């Protein structure tokens, strides 16, 4: 029990403790070393366990930097992350750092939400030059760099070697052209009557807009010219690409017209599809789940190989104190070092964003053992920046609906893309006129 005197003593000693702590804290700030706390929104685009990897890296950073505390906030998939960022910026309470899907860059610019990073980059000679150039396409505007690549990928073609062997195809040679793809897919499709128990090739839904962009690039076209402010949804190359899809799905019936992004990797693992177009980000999941040998290859070529890069970039936000911006840069610079980039790549299957990461010993070991990890990197030679425009979420919905309708065989590729083009021009009227 506390009697009066013991209570008084307790209060007195508490007061002393409070005073001493206060004194220490004020001394620390007198030296200019106050704890800076940073809010960091990050998405995980493909698989949940990666959240733990990010948290682990953040903890390591915090331990090494006593005066910076990064608070990681897992914000779901890419779309919810952008929504959280938009809401926070509109509400005047932006995060300090966020990893945002790269096509959202123009929307962030339109909202005046982010700061250019050139002054910081200039502090570290040779830093930005180490990044793969294709990864920087979605960071540049008016001669400045606004975003630093982090979790970056390209789509690749996965193929089931056991299924190839079963139908008499060479398990070590994936298709390299559209014609071969169509041919192999027909041989790999297993049906009984009208029932399909194994598809030849699945072009994943959900982000089919991103995969579609790769096919358009393979035909030598482009969907949006960001710097020229031009929409090219119904270009002949785009119509050709969509025509090929419809041929696979409706003509030859060797691929499912629709699917979802999350369910196709399990489909591949379960043997429901012999070939799969998906992100490199699922490589680690496939490795741990598939009980058959599989490979990853360049997406087959039409006129040329081609891919649109994808993934998320780091951004530092406007409207936070200068010391937070500086600390945010310290964090971004730290986590994109060659060591961290290679660790992150190995843990996730994402492409390490800088070439020098592949020279490190542990990365060398990994790629010697699993050469699949190099496929996406090498495909970067044919990689382009991802299409982007302000209000990208709507752009994506418009393109996805057009693709979905054409894939179902409801409208012809030309009509679907003409409609999408018209809708895009209406939606982005003020942006196009601003050129």
């Amino acid at each position, binding site marked *: 029990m506390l009697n009066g005197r013991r209570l008084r003593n307790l209060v007195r000693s508490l007061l002393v403790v409070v005073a001493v702590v206060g004194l220490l804290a004020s001394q620390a700030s007198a030296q200019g070393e106050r704890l800076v706390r940073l809010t960091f929104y990050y998405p995980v685009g493909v698989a949940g366990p990666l959240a733990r990897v990010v948290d682990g890296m953040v903890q390591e950073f915090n331990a090494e930097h006593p005066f910076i505390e990064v608070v990681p906030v897992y914000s779901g998939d890419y*779309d919810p992350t*952008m*929504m959280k960022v*938009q*809401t926070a910026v*509109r509400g005047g309470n932006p995060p300090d750092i966020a990893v945002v899907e790269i096509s959202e860059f123009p*929307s962030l610019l*339109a*909202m005046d939400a982010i700061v250019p990073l050139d002054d910081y980059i200039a502090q570290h000679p040779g830093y930005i030059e180490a990044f793969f150039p294709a990864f920087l396409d979605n960071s540049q505007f008016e001669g400045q760099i606004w975003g630093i690549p982090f979790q970056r990928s390209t789509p690749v073609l996965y193929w089931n070697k056991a299924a190839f062997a079963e139908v008499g195809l060479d398990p070590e040679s994936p298709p390299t052209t559209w014609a071969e793809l169509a041919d192999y897919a027909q041989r790999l499709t297993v049906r009984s009557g*009208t*029932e399909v128990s194994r598809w030849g090739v699945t072009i994943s*839904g*959900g982000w089919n807009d991103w995969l579609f962009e790769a096919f358009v690039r393979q035909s030598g076209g482009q969907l949006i010219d960001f710097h020229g402010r031009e929409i090219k949804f119904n270009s002949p190359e785009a119509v050709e690409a969509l025509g090929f899809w419809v041929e696979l799905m409706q003509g030859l019936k060797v691929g*499912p*017209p*629709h*699917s*979802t992004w999350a*369910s196709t990797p*399990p*489909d591949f693992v*379960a043997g*429901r599809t012999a070939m799969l177009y998906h992100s490199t980000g699922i490589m680690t999941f496939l490795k741990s789940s598939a009980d058959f040998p599989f490979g990853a290859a360049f997406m087959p070529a039409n006129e040329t190989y081609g891919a649109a890069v994808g993934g998320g970039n780091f951004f530092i936000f406007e409207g936070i104190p200068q010391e937070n911006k500086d600390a945010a840069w310290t964090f971004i610079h730290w986590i994109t070092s060659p060591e961290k980039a290679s660790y992150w790549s190995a843990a996730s299957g994402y492409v390490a964003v800088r070439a020098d990461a592949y020279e490190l010993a542990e990365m060398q070991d990994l790629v010697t053992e699993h050469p699949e990890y190099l496929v996406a990197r090498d495909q970067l030679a044919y990689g382009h920046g991802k299409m982007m425009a*302000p*209000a990208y*979420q*709507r752009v994506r*919905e418009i393109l*996805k*609906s057009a693709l*979905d*309708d054409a894939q*179902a065989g*409801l409208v012809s590729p030309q009509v679907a893309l003409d409609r999408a083009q018209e809708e895009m021009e209406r939606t982005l009227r*003020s*942006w196009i006129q601003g050129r």
Partner: protein
Amino acid sequence: MRTAKGNLSPYLYLIPSLVFLVAFTYYPIFSSVYISLHEWNLFTREPVFIGLENYAILFGDTLFWRVARNTLVYVVGTIPLTMVMALVMAILLNERLGWMRNVYRVAAFYPTMIPMAAAAMLWVWLLNPGIGLINHYLMQLGLPRIEWLYNMDWALPAIMLTAIWKNFGYFMLIYLAGLQNMPGELYEAADLEGANFFQKVRHITLPLLAPTTVFVVVVGIITSFNVFDLVHLMTQGGPGNRTNVIVYYIYQNAFRFSDYGMGSALTVVFVVMILIVILVLMRFLERRTHYEV
């Protein structure tokens, strides 16, 4: 003075709830109407007054009509089935089944207690075309495999199926409560007259359950119109907007596309639509309902 004070005090007591109503219901409604008359999106820093243009765009947009149609299909498709299942189960479970009755009651009510997100993910796997249990059993029965959530025609029915499974337990509970209040004399009288089970249900139970049914219909319509979570978790409105419903479309416009003007216009249209449906329905049902026993 005394009379004035006497007149005032009821209003004083109402203030606390009024504050919440104004802050969270009336203010947002009027503010939605106000914003819906403005262009306010990523490109406009401040709202710009444009009169009814948002509504004009909306009603000229084929996607809006598809979304409205999806919503109606969902409402009309789920409510009758949910109600019939709830009613049949309630009447059966109100009979004397011994100790098994409680087991059945728990089993029927169980889906309602599962969090919506968990239920949605569960059904995503059950409905998976390749490895899902539902297709497995369909094939065992010699029926064709269905692509469910991948398919433009089957995706919405698949979501409706999940909703019915998830919601009927709640309405069953309400019907059960209504059944427990039934006066026993009527059934005794019916027994003396030699009425069988179905005659009793037809001539006593159903008429007396009418007030409960009105409640169930109204609540059912409001919850069905408001469907969002299942769509968001299972299909995100796809494929090709075949499962996009009005609340999800509002969410897409306001929060994903940051088009606050259009989102607000949609909200206003939605509220008016629900009000009309409920008013018509109340008129129609009340004429047929006897509240006095």
